[in-house]
Every structure is written in structure tokens, then in C-alpha cells.
């Protein structure tokens, strides 16, 4: 129960951070990606603030045997650069530039009740299911498709 509360409060803080930083507004995100137009560097400052804090937290975690409330750390350990990483990131970036939303701001913005956000999040869920379905199909079809679409652990 304590773990659920920590997750809830972290999600809440994350959403408030997104809102205060301006990242729930597609105009700010698209403004950052518009390097050859009226460039808005705000998103770089969001990353700077978040990375500065998390960099220290990660260094601290390396000195801990286990997290405070859980038996162990689940941190991704892969270092290989495969085609799925490039293709996936490129497709994500295209959708990000097109809509001006990435997953965190989109889910947070559902609370606004605006129907365009609901359409975006529903399509995002469909994209996640599509990937899962193709990955499963790939398993029965061929190992090449499996290699291409295998569901990876996050980050």
C-alpha cells in the first residue's frame, strides 16, 4: 500500500512539474522542435532541471544495496544499439512533432476534458496494442519479425 502511495504522489508531482514547466502545451513542445523558426528553448530548461536532480539521485542509488521500500532496483542494463531503437525513436519523434504531445503530458492533459487529447491518448493506446499484436504475431511467423518487434523493457 505504501508503494502505491509513493507511485501516486510521484505521478502527481510529475504532472504538476509538466504543467508548471509548460510541457502540457503543444505550442511549447512544437516551439522547441522548431529550430529554424521562432525557437522556444524552454524544453531544454525542463530537461536541464530534471537531469540535474536525477543525475545526483542515480549516483546516490549506486551506493545503496536496495531501494528504501523495495527489495531491489529494476534498472535497464542493455547497451546495444539495435535497429528497433532507432526506428522506434524516429517514429515516436514524428508523432511528437505532429501532435505536440508525448505520453506524460498527454495523459496529464486528459484531466482537461478536451476531446483532442482523448483522441490522441486513445490512438496512443491503439499504437501500443498494435505493437504488442505484431510482436506476438512475429513470434509465430518468423524469428526475423520477432527480432524486429520484440517487446523490450522500458528505456
Amino acid at each position, binding site marked *: 500500500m505504501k508503494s502505491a502511495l509513493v507511485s501516486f504522489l510521484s505521478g502527481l508531482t510529475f504532472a504538476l512539474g509538466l504543467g508548471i514547466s509548460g510541457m502540457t502545451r503543444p505550442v511549447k513542445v512544437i516551439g522547441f522542435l522548431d529550430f529554424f523558426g521562432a525557437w522556444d528553448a524552454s524544453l531544454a530548461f525542463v530537461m536541464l532541471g530534471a537531469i540535474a536532480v536525477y543525475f545526483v539521485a542515480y549516483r546516490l542509488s549506486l551506493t545503496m544495496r536496495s531501494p528504501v521500500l523495495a527489495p531491489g532496483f529494476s*534498472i535497464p542494463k542493455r547497451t546495444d544499439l539495435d535497429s528497433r531503437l532507432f526506428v522506434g525513436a524516429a517514429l515516436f519523434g514524428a508523432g511528437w512533432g505532429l501532435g505536440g504531445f508525448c505520453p506524460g503530458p498527454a495523459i496529464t492533459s486528459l484531466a482537461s476534458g478536451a476531446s483532442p487529447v482523448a483522441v490522441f491518448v486513445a490512438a496512443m493506446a491503439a499504437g501500443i496494442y498494435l505493437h504488442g499484436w505484431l510482436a506476438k504475431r512475429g513470434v509465430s511467423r518468423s524469428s526475423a519479425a520477432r527480432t524486429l518487434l520484440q517487446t523490450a523493457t522500458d*528505456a
Partner: protein
Amino acid sequence: MNNFTPIASLIGGIMIGLSASAMLLLEGKIAGISGIFAGVLNPAKGELLWKSSFVAGLLGGGVMLRIFLPGAFNFEIVRPYGLLAVAGLLVGFGTRLGSGCTSGHGVCGISRLSPRSIVATATFVTSGAIVVYFGNHLL
């Protein structure tokens, strides 16, 4: 730079960093939103409670923003529904195939100096910039 908000963005960024740090130091988890959301849609054993609690927190934060900072939902750029559906599909599919989004790769991964996350972030910022360039300047 007509919309530039460095101070507010830095403060918001620090809050995001604190939230992700709490998940790491208390729970040992990476605060990657695309993975968390996918984990709610396709639950794995033992993962559903924390992931759905985090998503509930995002929504709760959204409700607080709606009450105390309604300007956060002043979207300004809203694409037609068809375009938003394509964008959402690309974001959902792409973040699964590429194992993460702005939070998992951009914040948590870069801070850990993960080569995969640094490459992924450079890739999605570049493809996003290309799409915005064609959308804003050529169409």
C-alpha cells in the same frame, strides 16, 4: 523566442526530476511514462498496482492543474482529429518499439549516461524537428 519561460520550465523540470528520483530511491523503478502506461494496458504480474497508481497520480495532478493553473491546458496548437490520431498511433507504437519516451530515455536514461537513451533522445528530437520543419515552413 516569443514564448520562452526559462524559470518556470527549470522549476517544473526540477519537480519532474524529484518525482523520478523518488521512484528510483524508494521503489527502484524507472519513471518512464510510456512503459508505465503500456504496463497498465497490458498488465504483468506484480506491476499493475504501482503503474496504475502512477497513472492515477498523473491524472490527479492534471485535475489540480485544471483548478489551480488552468493556463497549463491552454493548448493553442490543436491539430485536426485525423492528424492527432496518426500522431498518437506513432507515439504509442514508436515508444514501444524504441523502449521509451521523453521521460524514460530523455530524463532517466540520459542522467544514467545510457548510450541507448542518448541515441534514442537524439533520434526522436531530430525526427520531431524534421516533422515540425516540414509542417511549419513548407506546407
